[in-house]
């Protein structure tokens, strides 16, 4: 069974590559978009730091540049779960049918079909290049342990966030169009671009314990650069949130499928 799913994942990934490379103009503009977008943020931080004594709170330029790269990393991870955000659109169009009548987990099929493997790879490469250049050029000390802990917290944080997004998307089974609600949640994602420790403590708590935006950017960066040596607290918070949202999503998903109305046709 696992072998079958890996085989399918590989085939869907191939399809995802073909889909994206078929639209060549879009493919090239996507790469340009990635580079320009990150460059704007790095230039922005450089300009801001020009007005200060070279740091922003505890954050120096290399750390802020790494923060920008980490937002790319988190997006690269979330690209594999794009199916969850596409869920509400598919419910409204009655497009879940094809997953439900086949000998395959509908959730797996949905995620596999919608994953953006190529976009994820582009972002992953861009992030690795930026992090590599910054750490070497500015002589940032990174240990293997801190890198691994950082990636683990980032991964747990990303999955928790997509599960929240997925649960919101599932509301489409009850309420129809929930795109505004999803958009409202995405707005909170804007915080990932900025160091969370610069915000008031209640904002920090909210964006760590309720919506774990801190776990997909600020804290992984702090662990990565060695400012936070013990990642256990963040792992525990992330783990608890992951279990909680896994449970909520799983129950909602099962109930949602019973309510599915298969619009159209």
């Amino acid at each position, binding site marked *: 069974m696992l072998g*079958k799913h890996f*085989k*399918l994942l590989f*085939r*869907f990934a191939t*399809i995802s590559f*073909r*889909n994206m490379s*078929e639209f060549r103009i879009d493919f090239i503009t996507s790469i340009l978009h990635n580079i320009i977008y990150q460059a704007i943020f790095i230039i922005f931080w450089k300009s801001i730091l020009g007005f200060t004594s070279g740091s922003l709170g505890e954050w120096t330029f290399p750390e802020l540049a790494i923060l920008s790269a980490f937002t790319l990393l988190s997006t690269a991870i979330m690209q594999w779960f794009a199916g969850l955000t596409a869920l509400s659109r598919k419910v409204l169009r*009655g*497009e*879940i*049918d*094809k997953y*439900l*009548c*086949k*000998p*395959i987990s*509908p959730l797996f099929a949905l995620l596999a*079909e919608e994953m953006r493997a190529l976009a994820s790879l582009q972002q992953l490469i861009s992030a690795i290049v930026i992090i590599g250049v910054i750490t070497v050029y500015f002589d940032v000390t990174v240990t293997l342990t801190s890198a691994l802990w950082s990636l683990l917290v980032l991964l747990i944080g990303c999955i928790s966030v997509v599960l929240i997004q997925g649960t919101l998307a599932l509301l489409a089974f009850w309420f129809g169009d929930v795109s505004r609600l999803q958009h409202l949640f995405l707005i909170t994602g804007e915080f990932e671009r900025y160091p969370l420790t610069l915000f008031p403590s209640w904002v920090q708590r909210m964006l760590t314990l309720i919506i774990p935006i801190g776990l997909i950017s600020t804290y992984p960066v702090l662990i990565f650069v060695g400012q936070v040596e013990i990642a256990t607290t963040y792992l525990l918070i992330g783990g608890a949130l992951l279990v909680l949202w896994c449970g909520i999503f799983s129950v909602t998903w099962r109930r949602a*499928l*019973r309510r*599915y*109305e*298969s619009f*159209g*046709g």
Partner: protein
Amino acid sequence: MPDVISVRALEKTFRTPVPADPKSGPLRKLAHFIRNPSQPLTAVKDLSFVVPEGEVIGFLGANGSGKSTTIKMLTGILTPSAGQAEVLGFVPHRRQTEFTSQIGLVLGQKSLLWWNIPVLESFKLYRDIYNISSEDFETRLEVFADVLELRSIMHVPVRKLSLGLRMRAEIAASLLHRPRIIFLDEPTIGLDVRARLKLKRFLLRVNQETGVTIFLTTHNMFDVEDVCSRCVILSKGSALFDGAVSALKANEEHKRLDVEIFRTLDEARLGNVLDRCEVLAKDGPVLRLKVPSGEAVSIIGELYESCEMANLNVVPPTLESIVERLFEKDESEGGASAGQTLQAAV
């Protein structure tokens, strides 16, 4: 043959929003908007039937009669609101792998293929989903490519195919894993006459060669007449008729007689013959009569004795006219009750 589909008192109810009263004031409208009240809409009601293995059964009905809802409940896409459905011994909405790997589904109005990728890639995806061996896959693909004329479109993305070509590709994909039952929801919709004929011939061939049970929904009478041995007519979610297509035709209460006589029609000579039938048209020596089925033979005999006939045609009723009358009767007698009577009559 054992039953592969067994349905008892199946029901599906959806919720639909209640429109606000246009005459109500702004506050009431706001309250209505917040409460968003809904009302039940029954799409399928008290539906019971069984389908033996290998049968070609057609579900016929107007738009909104519950055909697609029935097919979606039988394939596990929708969960019934009440009643029981068993397909191949499984409860469809539990969607067990053993169940979904034995059925095939084609939805005429929705593509189940992957929109942006070439047809062949979609087929390969099906191969992996259904664990089809490479050898079987190649053999079946060859057959389908020939019979359904798919060879030229194998490398074309699905979104670029015409409706007819897409439908052929969908049917091939749904048969690749050799399902025991194939569900086809309006597969001929939007197809031209030639494409429709080809598709029907192919379905019959597959049924004869592999013994696959075919469950077809359509609102085209000819599809049922050409392909199905049995049909169920749905109206407002309930079965109006369930039986052999031939029995449906035998159920017709009237026949049409086209009579051509040598001399000018002498109505006095025909005596009471004309009183027993309805004259549909009178054009010189040609007379078109609508006669009760049970009296057709005696009326023909009387006509033979009363006038010199040059020609006589007994025009069989079309399935379309029969079904139309069933619907009319159902409307006038108030729905399901009429259905019960008609079902019992056949």
